[in-house]
């Protein structure tokens, strides 16, 4: 069964790695719903957050292909139940509409929107939340002359993750300890095997 999965990839910060990761999906004609790159909790380590809609089997194989890349330290994949995630959305609305219609202000308040910029001609609001939430506000604002809408990629925290500091130290050893060499055949599904 296809469902949303979030793939979290810890990598070296190298030029060209983005293409290598992107082609793992495009080669298999898999659509990437969103992709975010950012620093991670560990210094010098980059973190990719990729959302795709696929079966667990496909996602598991993709995660292994990603981990196979020389500059990837680790790839995890999680269902939505296993993560906390947010997306940021920006909405540009004509100021006249907001000023005239009290209802608009109430709607924005209900959706937790915050004004980022206020000008004579337009106001930019932001919301943070899940896709359904940010999408809902688009529906709501459409009748009031929504000028522009943009949404960021997903960023996600893995509920069970202990962070990457410990792992990184392990990677830096040229001879890893046996107990830290994970393997999925030990049923440690939450911690996809590597090393």
């Amino acid at each position, binding site marked *: 069964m296809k469902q949303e999965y979030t793939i979290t990839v810890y990598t070296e910060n190298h030029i060209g790695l983005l*293409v290598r990761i992107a082609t793992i999906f495009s080669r298999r004609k898999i659509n990437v719903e969103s992709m975010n790159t950012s620093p991670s909790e560990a210094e010098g380590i980059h973190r990719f957050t990729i959302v795709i809609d696929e079966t667990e089997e496909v996602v598991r194989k993709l995660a292994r292909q990603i*981990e196979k890349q020389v*500059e*990837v*330290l680790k790839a995890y994949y999680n269902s939505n139940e296993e993560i906390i995630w947010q997306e940021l959305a920006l909405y540009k609305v004509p100021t006249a509409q907001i000023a005239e219609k009290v209802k608009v202000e109430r709607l924005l308040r209900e959706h937790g929107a915050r004004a980022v910029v206020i000008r004579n001609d337009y106001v930019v609001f932001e919301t943070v939340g899940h896709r359904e939430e940010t999408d809902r506000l688009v529906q709501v604002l459409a009748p009031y002359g929504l000028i522009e809408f943009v949404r960021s990629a997903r960023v996600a925290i893995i509920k069970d993750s202990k962070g990457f500091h410990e792992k990184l130290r392990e990677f830096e050893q*040229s001879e890893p300890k*046996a107990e830290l*060499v994970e*393997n999925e055949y030990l049923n440690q599904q939450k911690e996809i095997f590597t*090393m």
Partner: protein
Amino acid sequence: MPSVQATPAAPSNTTQSTSISGSRAVLDALVAEGVDTIFGYPGGAIMPIYDALYDYHDRLKHVLVRHEQGGIHAAQGYARASGRTGVVFATSGPGATNLVTGLADAMIDSTPLVAITGQVFAHLLGTDAFQETDVINITSPITKWNYQVTDATEIPTVLAKAFYIASSGRPGPVLIDITKNAQLQLFDYKGYELCQHVRSYRPKPIVRREYIDAAAQLINAAQKPFVIFGQGVILGKAENEFIQFIEKSGIPAAWTILGLSAIPTDHPLNVGMLGMHGNYGPNVLTNECDVLIAVGMRFDDRVTGRLDKYAKQAKIIHLDIDPSEIDKNVKATVGVWGDCKETLPLLTQLVEKKEHSNWLQRFKEHDAEENKEVTFNELHPESPVLTMGEVIRHLNEITGGDAIIVTDVGQHQMVTCRYARFNQSKSNITSGGLGTMGFSLPAAIGAKFGAPKRTVIAIIGDGGVQMTLQELGTIMQTEINIKILILNNQFLGMVRQWQQLFHDKRYSFVDIVSPDYVKLASAYGISGASISQREDLHAALQTMIDHNGSYLLEVMVGKENNVFPMVPQGCSVSEIRLK
């Protein structure tokens, strides 16, 4: 251009530093990595490296090929024959793009290579400069790793990393693109250090004993165990460990096309070849065995046929060094992730000494049937025209199985792999995964440089030979001794066979005309002959082998002979056809 000193670079492990150019650092790295031969072709953007090479001729042999594709296939042949990393040089732009087919071939066949390409000056990157092409992005999906150097100070560490990555774990091609300014740049050189660790890269894991235990239990309980092995055994230099494993456990073993020659052909437990044109027994009995033990192979579709009807009755044990291969195509009951040089001995310790004589007998029965229906007639035909099989039979008689055989792609490749005999590992060199026509001639040149003491025979069809025959010029210039055996059926035979069997004999653009190969060879100063009569065959092959120097022999074979057995595409391995 900086002046290039003829004195050798500072040896490794010294703290003393000297100022040298990026180009010299490249060549010093090659010397330190033990490289003895480079295949390449110069051009504008790699000229500083070639200029430096002028002073390294006593330490590095450079083979000037006639096309960069020939260069990279030669480096592949060198790597496959020697077990060491092949090196190829090319210039930017078209030089680099001509490497693409070879990189893809080396990637899918796990061949350790380091390709070094020149690139335009760093300040010209992205300006559509003369002979600029985005080689890093073009080659990303077909290299294990690639990197662009724009600053010479990076060269020693990047090259050390390149050689380490290319040859460790599951080997593969690495491409290093070096801008011209970095080649020219003088920098403070502190010597070369081999790379032994890259923190984001684990070439092999620590072997987990619990999976060895689980695998051994399955094997010990099996009534009809069957081993299938691939190139992993050769790449892992685990031929002896593999033989000890099958000999103790008494399990019949069949090979993939790239696993061929890992064990001697006449080993009593060798039951033949897997896959589309493999042997009858190994294919049929894949769907009858109770435990299937896959060693260093990747369940390619040409091996498995229809996946949902592949070994469904069997428990599967999969030994591989690349974790992404385990469960990729065939779900493993027990996946043993590791280097088979380490995992096989552990498994051998735990398996019981057995003889599966009744089970082995089943393979022999199938073999007898295949012999009656296919093999005997192919090797001892009564038809007036020669068959490819009888050519290989006579060649076996002459070489005794001691030669390196480099095949191209198509019918002659399947026939050769089916019937050629091998006594030692790394003797079968062919383009397996990518199926690159034109591979054989340049790869045979490389193989000869990689194993100069051995007889190297390129066996090529009349299609493939015309794809890279410019490399006759390389043979002429280097004066190496390789044997070129063209099996000419005047067709693109494998495509014609499919058109006959699956497209109502609509022979669409498969009748290919050949030049006079003997005259062509003669133009390059290579002796040769062409024969079409059975009574000439043995003597002609003997002349080819005995000739002092390269020799081209064209054998005219039956035009419309087919390769059988055959697992038709989309069919199960047990639906293999004998005719």
